[in-house]
């Protein structure tokens, strides 16, 4: 039982890249959610619309940093910004944070770290699945809404969002690979 536990340490470069990626993600998220909000007030459709594009940006961030814990930091900061600044809706904080933790846990157990194609697809998919499940049930659990969406609709929405998240992860991986080949990314 003499296992050595490798400690994950984030460098300044990692953190600054994560910070800028979150800013980019926030812009992408705002544009897609505002676009969908103009057409429909339904929450599941907003989550579905933003999942693909947001996951592309997250996957690029994960492909560069590679360390487990990155998704939790992204989830926490994005959650704080969404909960306390704009759109200022508190239930978004537990949703993004739990999504990040779930993705990190899944990738740690299945792949060890981010960087491979499957780890990005799996991580983004898992994060979006948990995020959607929490965001569609948390307002009801807290008592903001009197009626919860039908469980089947919640499950179908979560699966669609997870698939789109995974697809976004794949596209993000391809972009990151191209940038690495071009020498623009390490």
């Amino acid at each position: 039982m003499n296992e050595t536990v490798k400690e994950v340490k984030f460098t300044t470069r990692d953190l600054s890249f994560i910070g800028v990626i979150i800013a980019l993600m926030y812009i992408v998220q705002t544009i897609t959610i505002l676009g969908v909000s103009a057409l429909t007030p339904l929450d599941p459709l907003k989550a579905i619309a933003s999942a693909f594009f947001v996951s592309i940006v997250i996957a690029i961030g994960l492909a560069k940093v590679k360390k487990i814990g990155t998704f939790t930091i992204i989830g926490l900061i994005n959650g704080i910004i969404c909960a306390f600044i704009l759109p200022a809706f508190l239930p978004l904080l537990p949703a993004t944070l739990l999504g990040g933790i779930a993705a990190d846990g899944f990738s740690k157990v299945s792949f060890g770290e981010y960087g491979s194609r499957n780890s990005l697809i799996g991580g983004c998919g898992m994060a979006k699945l948990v995020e959607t499940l929490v965001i569609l049930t948390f307002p009801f659990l807290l008592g903001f809404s009197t009626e919860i969406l039908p469980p089947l609709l919640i499950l179908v929405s979560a699966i669609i969002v997870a698939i789109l998240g995974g697809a976004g992860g794949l596209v993000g991986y391809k972009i990151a690979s191209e940038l690495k080949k071009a020498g623009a990314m390490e």
Partner: protein
Amino acid sequence: MILGLTLICALINHIFLLISLGVGILSLMIFSKILKRVSTFLGLFILFAVTAIAITAFITADWRYALDYFSPFLARFFIIISAGLLFAFTTPPHNFAQSLQQMKFPTAVTFTMGISLRYIPTLAGEAESIFQSLKLRGIKFSKWEVIKNPSYFYRGIIIPLIIRTIKISDEIAIAAESRGFKCDQKRNSLHKISIGKNDVLFLSTLSLIFIIIIFLDKNLLFLSLS
């Protein structure tokens, strides 16, 4: 305040008290002189509320049912959003990040959050510049064009924006390290944020109001008429 209001909203059931709380927050917005700036966001909320009620009323052919069904939900939603907007428009982002730092949040979180908040407008500007430079080269991006030729959008906007993002992040890292920043060390600041008399007064008043509202919600029967 946001956490308190969120919990209060979950605890209160009477629509009269929820509306009173909403009016209270609106008064705070007027007092803080931010009502004009938040009016766009409140306008979007009103649009959302009217749309939701109208759709339900149209489907059920019963206006009263639609109003009864949506009123508590929309009142709670309004309170939470207004509290968030009040916080967002009266607290500078760097003060918020510094407060988290003083509350012993890890440096990794506060540093990253500071960068995110600082660079949202910068990156939006970068995207706009890239977009304009493409226009100057004669490439037009209509919605239809993006769907027809997604590679234009990918090569023209996404790749340059990500390369710019990487460069910006490297510059930030170099600037931070050259000023002695280290992720695993405690940061200090020239100006400390502390809790003043006004904060204590505001917090006490808010707590008192919360207690009165919960008391009214649980004990006064006449409110059930609402």
